[in-house]
């Protein structure tokens, strides 16, 4: 039936194509997407382009920390140990992105499964599952991660596991809310009358219909994770040598702020740009995937 605004004309390609079109029309989001892609490419290619290795100390410089210059290909300068910042910044970006993506992936997988099941099954199971979420939410997140890293050492895997293991809570709540609403829809009742078991219904009907929301929140989680990892680095609990991350670089750079400002400049600008772009993209995705046509 016609909607209240007669904009419900035929489309082709399904709901994703519709969303893609809406996204393309959102210039801020498209620009943000381009920026993200460029940053990712830079992160991957940057270290390859530079003649320097990640932890190569350039003894030719005096002092070791030297500002950006073109002649000796230290385009971002060097840090207090004489290591090229260009390579370090992009390597750090790789690590930050990796941590963020993996941690977000963990949140998504656990959160969607948990939330969709709780929301669809409802009743007592829902009650218990969400009490677990409530309790975990109440734990001091920060202390939890810090204790884990202190006890188990600062491995990369542990970090993203810890972050992801806490990040799934919000995802679970969001997905549960969506699943609750979906449960009332007639196509879910139709699936029940087909005799489909609950897990099939959750997998085939609930999850695909919450994907839109999940994508949006995942995109908005990535910058949160990067920021959190940066914070850990600031506390000295982030990734270990020889790896580095944007957060570590910012932390190190902050120490030298007065004497060698370029050490702070490059990683901060990259970090801020990345976060901004991801947030814009996430907002754009939310608008695009909202099924209500405007």
């Amino acid at each position, binding site marked *: 039936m016609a909607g209240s605004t007669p904009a419900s004309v*035929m489309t082709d390609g399904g*709901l994703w194509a519709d969303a893609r079109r809406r996204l393309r029309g959102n210039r801020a989001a498209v620009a943000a997407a381009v920026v993200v892609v460029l940053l990712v490419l830079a992160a991957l290619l940057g270290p390859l382009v530079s003649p320097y290795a990640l932890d190569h100390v350039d003894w030719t410089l005096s002092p070791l920390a030297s500002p950006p210059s073109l002649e000796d290909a230290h385009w971002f300068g060097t840090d207090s140990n004489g290591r090229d910042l260009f390579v370090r910044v992009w390597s750090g970006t790789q690590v930050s992105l990796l941590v963020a993506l993996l941690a977000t992936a963990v949140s998504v997988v656990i959160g969607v499964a948990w939330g969709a099941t709780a929301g669809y099954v409802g009743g007592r199971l829902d009650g218990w599952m969400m009490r677990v979420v409530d309790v975990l939410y109440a734990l001091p997140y920060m202390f939890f991660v810090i204790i884990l890293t202190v006890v188990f050492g600062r491995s990369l895997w542990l970090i993203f596991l810890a972050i992801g293991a806490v990040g799934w809570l919000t995802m679970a709540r969001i997905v549960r809310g969506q699943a609750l609403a979906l449960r009332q829809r007639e*196509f879910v*009742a139709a699936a029940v*009358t087909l*005799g489909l078991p609950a897990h099939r219904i959750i997998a085939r009907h609930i999850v*695909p219909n919450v994907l839109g929301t999940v994508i949006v929140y995942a995109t908005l989680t990535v910058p949160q994770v990067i920021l959190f990892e940066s914070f850990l680095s600031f506390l000295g609990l982030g990734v270990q040598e020889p790896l580095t991350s944007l957060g570590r670089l910012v932390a190190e750079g902050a120490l030298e702020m007065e004497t060698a400002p370029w050490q702070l400049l490059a990683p901060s600008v990259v970090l801020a740009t990345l976060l901004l772009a991801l947030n814009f993209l996430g907002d754009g995705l939310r608008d695009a995937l909202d*099924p209500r046509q405007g």
Partner: protein
Amino acid sequence: MREQLLKVRGLTVRFPMRREGLIGPRRWLTAVDAVDLEVAAGQSVGIVGESGCGKSTLARAILALVVPQGGTIEWRGQSMRLDDAAALKQMRRELQVVFQDPVGSLDPRMTIGESVAEALLALQGPQAPGAAATRVAASLREVGLDPALATRYPHELSGGQCQRAAIARAIVARPRLLVCDEAVSALDVSVQAQIVNLLDELRQRHGLALLFISHNLAVVRHLCDEVVVLYLGRVVERASREQIFAAPRHPYTRALLAAVPHPDPAQAARTGLVAMREVDAVPQSATAAVPGCAYLPRCPFAESNCRTQAPRLEDAGGGQLIACHRWRELPVAR
């Protein structure tokens, strides 16, 4: 004698409501109150009533979507219990449903071909390669849809086309009884007629039985052999099509029929409502256990007996059942 497909006896469905105060007794909303119902093979039974009468809840209980608090449901002689998985599986294959919202009853993320195929596979198990696609196409053709539409999504189709797709999904596994829960109410007038005709055709072609729930009496009259009238969860009258529409006996049935405006200015210009008291001219929600007749507050023929004793269904002759203390005294013709 045609086979008895569905036999419902004393079906009661209640929903819990908020308690009175913190520790008071829990209140219940009785949506379906001791309803008896039968549908034989090939028969078309209409269930009519207004909002709050419980017809949708009744449909959901029959489809095993809600758990009844009392009564029995038998499918082809076998008692249906929600814990008997095997029996339930067999029933699901033979008892299917078409819902009111054509677009909403199809998963928006699946093409209509996928929706129909899902039904086929769920109800009849894995198919030989290619066989599933053939049967989906055949089902779509049977409901008047071009099989090429199988790749479309629900929001790309009109309401009528979506409802046809929903019907295609319901009949792909060759059910014996189709429950239609307000299946044409959300459609444009010109499309309603098409879908009604389609349902009729399917009935005749496959010997399909119909349980047609609707508030539209004219459509029910066209489509159904038998009509059951519900009021606040109770059956107040049950009769054949001829009996109900030519000679309704229960006061509520009469009021219902009198309230339907005819598309004819000469007839429709009269004041709409006949024989229904204005009191609180809305069905109250069925919360309190009503000792007497549920229709009492609105009934212009009520007497003291009606307040204390709930009327039972009595046979008025020719299979017409009425739940009213005074049906013998009330004038017959409309």
